[in-house]
């Protein structure tokens, strides 16, 4: 086992896959020679050459379209979109083409493309470097949508994504690239070496897509969350001192309904937390699913804690970010209800 932060774990996943499978190609803006603006592809072009790890023009639509063409021609493209906020020029190629190619050709054509893209705020990125658009993609039939919350999962899930026969949008919460973040920006940064999930095997391993993980077992309430917010939720649970079960959803599509709903049926109380905006956000899907599956077990109305329904404001980042205090209040709310 090695100590890795999330950037190193992602780099290691790409390294392993480039080494194992000659069909894997990695490309995106600044991805090749420079190694990526977040360093996720550092050293890979030197190791695998310019035909396997490529810099691309600044054209997200072109990047995804080229990935589709490469996928159709037998490669396994891993395309980086430098920030999730920049993914929209590629929207048509993702939604109308990538997601539906297998369907519209009755399985005769497919493009097993993985799109990696850093998401989320808390980095002083303002509204163009902070978004969490996962819900935009979970609404699209034919895409798998993944968001890891730690280095170990990031590597295992990225390897699974690349090996998957379907297109995957792989969101990387950039606030936790270098260490787990509990939602308090005033505390000194904590490195991944302090966290058990910073222990990452150097070789190949896969974490199945479609499996949630119980991060903290508990019996009083269930917290459903993913990405950066897993760590913020842990802090909130410590704050409230309640025995809450925290579930890291990990894969939004396909969703591990069994793990989620077994927990809520057990605890009877549910708080859903994500950094993305609330209205029509992925939390709404989680809430509806829990209501349908667990209604007769619920002791309290389901609560959602999310980013406000505004663009991500630069100056008011920590008023916007759904920090531990807001999660704690929601937890207390579901505990008090009866």
């Amino acid at each position: 086992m090695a100590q890795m932060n999330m950037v190193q774990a992602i780099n290691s996943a790409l390294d392993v896959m480039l080494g194992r499978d000659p069909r894997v190609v990695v490309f995106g803006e600044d991805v090749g020679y420079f190694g990526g603006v977040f360093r996720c592809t550092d050293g890979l072009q030197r190791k695998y050459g310019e035909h396997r790890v490529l810099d691309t023009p600044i054209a997200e639509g072109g990047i995804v379209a080229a990935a589709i063409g490469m996928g159709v021609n037998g490669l396994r493209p891993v395309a980086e979109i430098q920030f999730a906020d920049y993914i929209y020029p590629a929207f048509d190629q993702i939604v109308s083409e990538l997601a539906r190619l297998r369907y519209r050709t009755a399985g005769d054509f497919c493009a097993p493309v993985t799109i990696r893209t850093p998401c989320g705020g808390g980095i002083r990125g303002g509204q163009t470097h902070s978004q969490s658009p996962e819900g935009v993609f979970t609404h699209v039939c034919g895409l798998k949508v993944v968001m890891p919350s730690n280095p170990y999962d990031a590597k295992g899930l990225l390897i699974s994504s690349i090996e998957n026969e379907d297109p995957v949008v792989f969101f990387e919460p950039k606030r936790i690239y270098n260490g787990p973040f509990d939602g308090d920006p005033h505390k000194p940064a904590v490195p991944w070496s302090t966290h058990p999930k910073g222990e990452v095997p150097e070789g190949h391993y896969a974490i199945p897509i479609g499996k949630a993980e119980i991060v903290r077992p508990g019996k009083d309430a269930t917290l459903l969350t993913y990405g950066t917010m897993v760590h913020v939720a842990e802090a909130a649970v410590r704050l409230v001192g309640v025995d809450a079960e925290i579930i890291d959803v990990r894969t939004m599509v396909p969703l591990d309904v069994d793990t989620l709903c077994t927990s809520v049926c057990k605890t009877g109380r549910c708080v859903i937390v994500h950094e993305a905006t609330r209205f029509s956000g992925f939390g709404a899907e989680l809430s509806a699913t829990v209501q349908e599956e667990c209604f007769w077990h619920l002791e309290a109305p389901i609560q959602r804690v999310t980013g406000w329904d505004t663009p991500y404001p630069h100056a008011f980042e920590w008023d916007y970010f759904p920090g531990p205090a807001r999660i704690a209040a929601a937890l207390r709310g579901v505990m008090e209800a009866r």
Partner: protein
Amino acid sequence: MTQSRLHVPHPPARPGEKPDFSYLEIPPAGRAARPDTLASALEIEQLGTGMVRVLDEHGQAVGPWNPHLEPEELQVALRHMLLTRRFDERMQRMQRQGRISFYMKSTGEEAVAVAQAMALQPGDMLFPSYRTQGLFIVRGKSLVDLMCQCLSNTRDMCRGRQMPIMYHWAEGNIFSISGNLATQFPQAVGWAMAAAIKGEDRIASSWIGEGASAEADFHHALTFAAVYQAPVILNVVNNQWAISSFQGFAGGERRTFAQRGPGYGIPGVRVDGNDFLAVHAVTRWAAERARARGGPTLIEHVTYRAAAHSTSDDPSRYRPKEEWQAWPLGDPITRLKEHLIGLGEWSEERHAALEKELEAHVTACWKEAITYGTLSEGPTLDPVSMFEDVFHEMPQHLKRQREELRRLLAEQHAAAQAAAAEG
């Protein structure tokens, strides 16, 4: 003080007016030089402003672009073009009779797809637009298969998931047609990049209309193709009309579409799209260039959309009815036919016999196709199959929805049977 005003492009003629193609400069056949296949894009910029033409007004093949094809090959070409036209006409009629929901003819543009498919290698990957059905016909896809797709019947290659004409053919190396315009252009470049990454000698070719060249995908395709020198042929079929918008609305008033190539460092070649020989020669030139690591070529095919945009369109609302008759580049089928007759390799009698043979073939294919079902008559596809192929393996939520639909259909079936028994 000068006030700003928009320039709103107007076509030269609207309904009731006299067709006017004076905007189109047509150089004599044989005039364009045929450069070396590895000439630099800037050296051969004039190919984007002139027009490569081989067949002259007497039906003779002239000049350096004459591909010198054998008469047998030209006879095959004539057959493919005629079959495309007969197929289109039949399907249009079937739509009018309500047997299929929609159709799009390629009338007047048959030379583009047929000549290009014939000039390329069978292993080359084609990324078609919705008006290049000739590609499928040249590569040998059976008309029955194409008709079954239009019928969404039990033999539909798309299993009822796509509107008519959105064909694909994996074994024939023809990609799937998308209703979202120009998306296939940069995908073809990606395919060609993969061929180069793998070190293959296969190339890609893609088609869009001049209207769709306004999409960002056009720019992405040319940028990526130029940057990586991808082995790809990018075709803009300038048929003058994008539904009701004439080519000026895609920027055709200022520059030819071929001229956009050199801006990216890509040769732009403008060709008489109704001249089978010229299209064939230009395609072969571009293919040789691509295979010799010369990179991409942009080809503009100057042609005319003789039919409506689709069965949902009525062109008499926006253009003169007589425009097709006035089109200065003529009918591609007539031109090749006259050339062959001039060579002593064809005759009106043989032509009439071929027409009759193809008509009978199309009729027989249609008769067979409808035995596999139509939109209104069985046999029909099983609706629960709609849940397949969304993903490689069906996830839980789709299995649940499939069960729900299955239950619903069973209830409907039982209710219908009960009603019939009472009835």
